[in-house]
């Protein structure tokens, strides 16, 4: 069964660390690791050139995902969830254009069209260009929840062989979404990056679409 949670685990456990926690340290679940099992939006498949669909996906999105507008429809066609544990990252940046207020013309286009204009009478504004890529991305969200700043969406999902009992689900949710402290920290590897990731800050600059011309 597929369980999807919002955000990067607040404990900073990475996929390997979360798997170690869930399977070995706290023994909360048995994860699916078969190379013959691939979860996708459309169902569970045996992957490969002779791929075969096994059965429909059983999934559960956390309440935090639903609260910010990430529903099952947020995942586009042919989305691959694989198996095991994955901490996915999606980046998106809207494109803006500085235009003369009330028009969709930038200053040069405005002057070319209107001729000489007193600068004091002009008001500029930053207009969001709703191009095809942005419209497709925005359509994935429930209405009124799509962030319109450059942003990163982290999702953490686990694929288990069986449905989780409530106590195990709540414990995993607490580890990922609420930053609960993992038990027996001495049982995690000291190798840099093996179980815990280094936190890094984003400077807020555009993550995508740098045009060179």
């Amino acid at each position, binding site marked *: 069964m597929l369980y999807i949670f919002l955000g990067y685990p607040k404990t900073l456990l990475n996929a*390997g660390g979360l798997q170690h926690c869930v399977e070995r340290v706290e023994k909360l679940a048995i994860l699916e690791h078969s190379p013959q099992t691939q979860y996708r939006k459309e169902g569970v498949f045996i992957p490969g050139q002779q791929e075969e669909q096994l059965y429909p996906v059983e999934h559960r999105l956390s309440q935090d995902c639903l609260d910010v507008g990430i529903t099952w429809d947020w995942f586009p066609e042919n989305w691959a*969830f694989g198996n095991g544990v994955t901490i996915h*990252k999606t980046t998106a940046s809207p494109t803006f254009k500085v235009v003369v207020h009330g028009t969709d013309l930038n200053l040069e286009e405005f002057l070319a069209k209107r001729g000489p204009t007193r600068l004091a009478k002009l008001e500029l504004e930053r207009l969001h260009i709703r191009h095809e890529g942005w419209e497709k991305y925005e359509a994935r969200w429930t209405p009124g929840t799509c962030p319109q700043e450059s942003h990163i969406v*982290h999702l953490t999902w686990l694929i288990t062989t069986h449905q989780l009992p409530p106590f195990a689900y709540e414990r995993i949710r607490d580890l990922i979404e609420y930053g609960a402290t993992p038990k027996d920290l001495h049982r995690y590897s000291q190798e840099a*990056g*093996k179980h815990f990731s280094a936190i890094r*800050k984003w400077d807020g600059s555009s993550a995508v679409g740098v045009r*060179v011309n």
Partner: protein
Amino acid sequence: MAETSPGGIAFDTTLPASTGVAAVGVAAAAARRDHVHPSAVTYAGGNTTEATTTSTTTVDILTVSSLSIEAATPFSFLGALRKTSGSADTVRGGIKLNTTVIIDSINLDNALFYLSVVNEPQSGGFNCLIPPRVTNYIRGVTGTFSAAGATGTLYDGITSAMSATIPSVTITDVTVNGRVENALITLGVDDVHVYTLATS
């Protein structure tokens, strides 16, 4: 600070994110202008920690969405990758453009990258260049990758075979997919950036 649009509709330009509510008004354009919503998924200035997986079948690891790259526009992308120790096995990566898997990480000779099987932490990078997708020119993917471990194990190669032709449509999503050959190792991908190239 409230401003007034040409149609006379008032909207807030300074604190649109404080309420999370689009402006009320008859002018749809004016309403859209302060349609900026706060939420836990807006991480401006926040955490950009890596994407990781222990999946033994192909999984979408990192996606760059909201693009708009026309079919006639060449583009490239690059990224950083790493694997942890845990098993003497490799990790592999591939590409998905929009919803089409162009390179699947399922086969060794069919990957965006694959790393040495030496049981050690390794890190490296990859890049990929995709020329314009026009009639009869729909399989143009060139790329290289390399990675190394602490013992100096260098592994590199060229992105080769493809699983499918590139769609000759506007590219809106670039996804790096991948898998590990043994769930005891973790594959990490980060800092994927997409660049479009000028044609004139």
